[in-house]
């Protein structure tokens, strides 16, 4: 299996002296292609910092961050920017779609910013919308879409083109549990192609969609789940009365 994301001995400290805060301490984490990992912890545990560092939106104080074999923590700014445009997809809690662009234009945008010719970019964007089953919404503006549709478009934008790493911070936002489940099904399907996914959440039900759940507390990874046995053992557990 290919490792799509690897954090080696990553630490992040904010401030200095007495006001110094250790957001992350010596984090070790590898995520393979095709694997969905949930990072679970309370607010202030460092889970969002972990995600922004994995996505090269922030540099660690120490350590290395490999995405698709490239050490982003020590790469040039232009190399970092290129990886953000081409290899990493982000899904945010509040969707972050641009209100003045249609669904299709929102999904096309990251490719256009990367210099992909317009026609090719539109074709890839259309494919991503197809995959997320919002093809017929391509011409709509974000405020004409339901919450669930907006999130599908946001995921389409995160997987468009050839991305290696999909990062999501509380990706189901304010959706109800059944629609939140739909989002997790989509993220799972997206990662099970050949993308590595990392979802940050405090929600146990969402985390349970992941192949592996990593627990973070006070900036430390303290534990993780074991591989999941088959579901058979759960069924036929007891006789009804």
């Amino acid at each position, binding site marked *: 299996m290919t490792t799509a994301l690897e954090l080696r001995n990553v630490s992040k400290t904010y401030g200095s002296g007495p006001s110094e805060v250790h957001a992350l301490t010596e984090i070790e984490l590898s995520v393979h292609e095709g694997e969905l990992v949930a990072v679970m912890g309370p607010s202030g545990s460092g889970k969002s910092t972990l995600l922004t560092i994995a996505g090269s939106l922030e540099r660690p104080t120490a350590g290395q961050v490999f995405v698709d074999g490239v050490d982003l923590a020590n790469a040039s700014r232009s190399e970092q920017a290129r990886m953000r445009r081409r290899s990493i997809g982000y899904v945010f809690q509040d969707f972050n779609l641009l209100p003045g662009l249609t669904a299709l234009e929102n999904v096309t945008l990251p490719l256009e910013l990367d210099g992909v010719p317009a026609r090719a970019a539109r074709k890839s964007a259309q494919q991503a919308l197809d995959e997320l089953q919002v093809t017929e919404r391509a011409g709509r503006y974000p405020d004409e879409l339901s919450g669930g549709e907006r999130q599908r478009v946001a995921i389409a934008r995160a997987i468009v083109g050839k991305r290696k790493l999909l990062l999501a911070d509380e990706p189901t936002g304010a959706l109800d549990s059944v629609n939140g489940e739909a989002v997790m099904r989509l993220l*799972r399907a997206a990662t099970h192609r050949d993308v590595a996914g990392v979802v940050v959440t405090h929600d146990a039900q969402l985390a*349970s*969609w992941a192949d592996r759940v990593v627990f973070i507390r006070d900036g430390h990874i303290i534990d993780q789940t074991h591989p999941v046995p088959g579901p058979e053992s759960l069924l036929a557990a007891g006789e009804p009365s």
Partner: protein
Amino acid sequence: MSVPYALLALLSESPKYGQRLQSEFEARTGRVWPLNVGQVYTTLQRLERDGLVEADGEGEGARKQYRIAPAGRRELEDWLRTPPELVPPPRDELVIKVLVALEVPGTDVHEILQVHRRHVIEVMQRYTAVKAAATEGDLPLALVADAELFRLEAIVRWLDAADVRLKQADPSSQHSEVSPTPTTDPEATPATEVSQ
């Protein structure tokens, strides 16, 4: 308790033989409750004795077809609206383990909480896998898996709340950085409201 009512519900659609009742019961409860055919027949005999179902045809067991009686319909309607027992005895095993852990010197209660949190989430992953593998139209299975997942999620939330209460009750853990294996002062006995 609920098997007789489930059989009454199946009979309220149309008269049925025992074998068919067994297979429909399993299909409509997401196949998570196996039911042997012997149990179906003993239940039907009891329902017949109580005047809640009536049997067509002579003979024994498999040759009898059952229909719901008017008294059975009334019984079923009442049962659907009767709240189940929601007040369990206050001796949940996990709660007791955590309360006991508070009293054992040298025990890191946060670590105990995490052991249980991980275990519950692993079980949740298995139920989610059941849901993920289920065909889209399998409504009973989705409902059964949801029920278990919400119940397990409540346990995780209780563990999370217990973590916070323990920290608040123990001033020595109020650092910006906590070592991976913090020790809890056994003398600092947190409040017992965690059992609520």
